[in-house]
């Protein structure tokens, strides 16, 4: 939720404004420079010329969470790292998205049973929008996850949630 969300009545100006804003957001998803383990190598491959994440407007890896829209959690999240990861997520401005890349971040992966130090899925720490399985995932898989994220952003709206009034009434009772 950012400053412009949830402000306009449905059908007022939002139809075209939605399209414009979603187009802008979709075409400039800036990820954070943030790699934790071997998945980060594949993420770097995605950023390099052969796979070229810049084709999707998401090649501007920012060195600070305050300029990023997307956190690609690429690699094993340990308990020691979890608090740092949560702090980085909290420092990102809205709207912000998270892609869990690789088996470790999806659910502990190879460390699920014997890894005393590994968080069993990064969704226990931060909310995740898309899961990209693989160990590590191919660069094409990460690009697929990015495209699904673009689909999600394209269907967002600035309109009030039509159910929010109903929910408020229910809560008032």
């Amino acid at each position, binding site marked *: 939720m950012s400053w412009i969300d949830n402000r306009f009545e449905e059908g007022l100006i939002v139809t075209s404004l939605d399209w414009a804003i979603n187009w802008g957001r979709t075409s400039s998803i800036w990820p954070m420079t943030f790699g934790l383990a071997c998945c980060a190598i594949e993420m770097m491959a995605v950023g390099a010329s052969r796979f070229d994440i810049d084709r999707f407007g998401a090649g501007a890896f920012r060195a600070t969470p305050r300029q990023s829209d997307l956190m690609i959690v690429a690699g094993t999240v340990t*308990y*020691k790292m*979890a*608090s740092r990861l949560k702090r980085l997520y909290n420092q990102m401005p809205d709207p912000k998205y998270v892609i869990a890349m690789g088996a470790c971040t999806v659910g502990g992966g190879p460390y*699920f*049973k*014997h890894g*005393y*130090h590994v*968080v*069993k899925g990064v969704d*226990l*720490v931060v909310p995740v929008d898309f899961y990209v399985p693989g160990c590590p995932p191919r660069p094409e898989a990460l690009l697929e996850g990015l495209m699904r994220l673009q689909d999600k952003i394209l269907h967002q709206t600035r309109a009030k949630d039509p159910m929010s009034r109903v929910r408020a009434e229910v809560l008032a009772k």
Partner: protein
Amino acid sequence: MAPEEICIILTGEFGDGVVDTVLDACRPYAVVRVDGWSDIARFLRDDGRMRFNMLQCVTALDLLEDNKLAAVYDLFSVPVVGVGPCATLRQHFAIRVEVDRDAPHIPSVSGIWPAAEWHEREAYDMMGIVFDDHPNLTRILCPDDWEGYPLRKDYEFPLEYHGIPATTEHQLNSPRH
């Protein structure tokens, strides 16, 4: 110098300080008493026949059946140009120190080989061996507030850490091998 000769010299110098010598291992080693380990370490580094000027690694062992912990120090004599006979030494040897699991105290050798400092911190972090007189014996890999020593054979997993649930399989807190 052959490992047999190193063992003979060590036994001659320290007598009871050397508990056992194992020569048929892939890397021969001597088991030494924990209270004489500092003197033996200094001897191994400074004696002209030894000149073990490099500590390659420290290995920690959990001997659960014997209720003991052990540390193995792998030594090597790096040739130093112009310093004594060590230009021709290039020898390997290992020292094993065994301690009781209930009070695992070993004197630190970080004053003798500075490389031991981080190795000993890691052995402390993972196995809980306490190295006395270490300049900074804190955990090196795990968070400072971690409970237990993860590589011990009877270690139990945490089921929760700072609010993050650690769902191991069937809620077991140790792996069933």
